[in-house]
């Protein structure tokens, strides 16, 4: 086994911008939270706007993580570690993003449905959506239809996201969508659904706009549907 050589240690502050971003991709991939936090601080000190740090260093790195998860190269534990590292970077950037008025491309209310306490997938989606420039209102777990409706009333989101891990809880998504239809709220909101036992057929059958198989797909789908809505509004 090779011994650690202190001379091989990478000093983040000695890397140029491009090298540092590359190194942050690696550190994010390896779930190295402290290194990510250090990288974020270095880029900010070098005058990078917070939004640029977020999109180029963090979201860029998480995109690779997402692709390798989708392709079966990374698994849930590694994705969780990467997400934890990104969260560390986001915690530094979030107040700065608010101060600098970074662009917001839409608002999402998201929550795990009633009877279900599983939130790993939902949390990943929340984080990736925030990284992509969405404002995210996270309702947490075990949400009854009333909680979704109250949040939609208060927040007027562009998107409602619902998550379920259990075969027994996923039908509740239809309860929420049917209630939205009954109350005339369905056409105002894009509905995205996700969770391990779901698939596209289920999403279609319950009247969602799309089923998203993972967080990266959720971000791409949300962007595409928001853009389509804007185009429709402009044309109308």
């Amino acid at each position, binding site marked *: 086994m090779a011994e650690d050589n202190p001379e091989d240690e990478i000093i983040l502050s000695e890397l140029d911008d491009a090298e540092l971003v590359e190194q942050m991709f690696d550190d994010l991939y390896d779930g190295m939270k402290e290194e990510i936090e250090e990288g974020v601080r270095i880029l900010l000190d070098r005058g990078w706007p917070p939004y640029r740090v977020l999109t180029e260093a963090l979201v860029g790195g998480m995109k690779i993580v997402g692709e390798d998860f989708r392709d079966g190269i990374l*698994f*849930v*534990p*590694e994705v*969780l*570690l990467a997400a*934890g590292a990104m969260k560390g970077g986001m915690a530094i950037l979030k107040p700065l993003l608010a101060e600098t008025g970074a662009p917001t491309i839409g608002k999402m209310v998201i929550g795990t449905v009633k*009877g*279900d*306490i*599983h*939130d*790993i997938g939902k949390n990943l989606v929340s984080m990736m959506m925030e990284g992509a420039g969405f404002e995210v209102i996270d309702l947490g*777990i*075990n949400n009854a239809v009333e909680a979704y409706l109250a949040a939609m009333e208060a927040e007027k989101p562009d998107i409602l996201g619902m998550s379920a891990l*259990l*075969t*027994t809880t*996923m039908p509740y998504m239809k309860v929420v969508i049917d209630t939205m239809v009954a109350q005339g709220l369905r056409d105002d909101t894009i509905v995205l659904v996700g969770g*391990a*036992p*779901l*698939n596209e057929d*289920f999403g279609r059958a319950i009247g969602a706009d799309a089923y998203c198989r993972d967080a990266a797909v959720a971000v791409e789908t949300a962007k595409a549907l928001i853009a389509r809505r804007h185009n429709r509004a402009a044309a109308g």
Partner: protein
Amino acid sequence: MLALRSQRGLDHVGLICLPAKLHNSPERIPGAVRATVARHRGHYAQIKLLYADCGTGGALAALCEELGLEMLPGAHCYAVYDGVARFAARAEMRSFFLTDFLVRQFDAFVWRPLGLDRHPELRDAYFGNYRTLVHLAQVDAPETAALAESHAARLGLAFERRLTGYGDLGVSLDGWARPDGPRSARSLGASPPR
């Protein structure tokens, strides 16, 4: 399943097992079942599937409908062992369940696949919303109960033990495999729930 077959003298019933680790990727279960049924159909008068939905989101039920098979009722083996109606009535959202099999194979099917052997700091990301580990015991064995209790401690959860026996697995089996006479031609190809 072997215990039930032996208890009930169902020696005309065959048993074919699929890998238990399929439960960690339920989307692969229907394909594995389809292939197994195709391989064995010619050898048995009847094939029954000893899977509940097991996280397939209805895909297994659809496959059974297509192939003309019967399967176990309920969402998963926990409901089958506890009794599907009883399990639903309890609505234990914050309980994490282990059968005897999972108690014995905890490291191989829970701890290591979740990466907790390498990253124990992830424990609360997985289990933070749970409150209790419920051991659904098929057999009254103190050593299995003690092992289950130690798993609860590792996960930071309270512990409860429930002696279920084989629950609705036995009920379904009795309904399907009751011989019409000695050495009935009816046979059962099965994949045991964990």
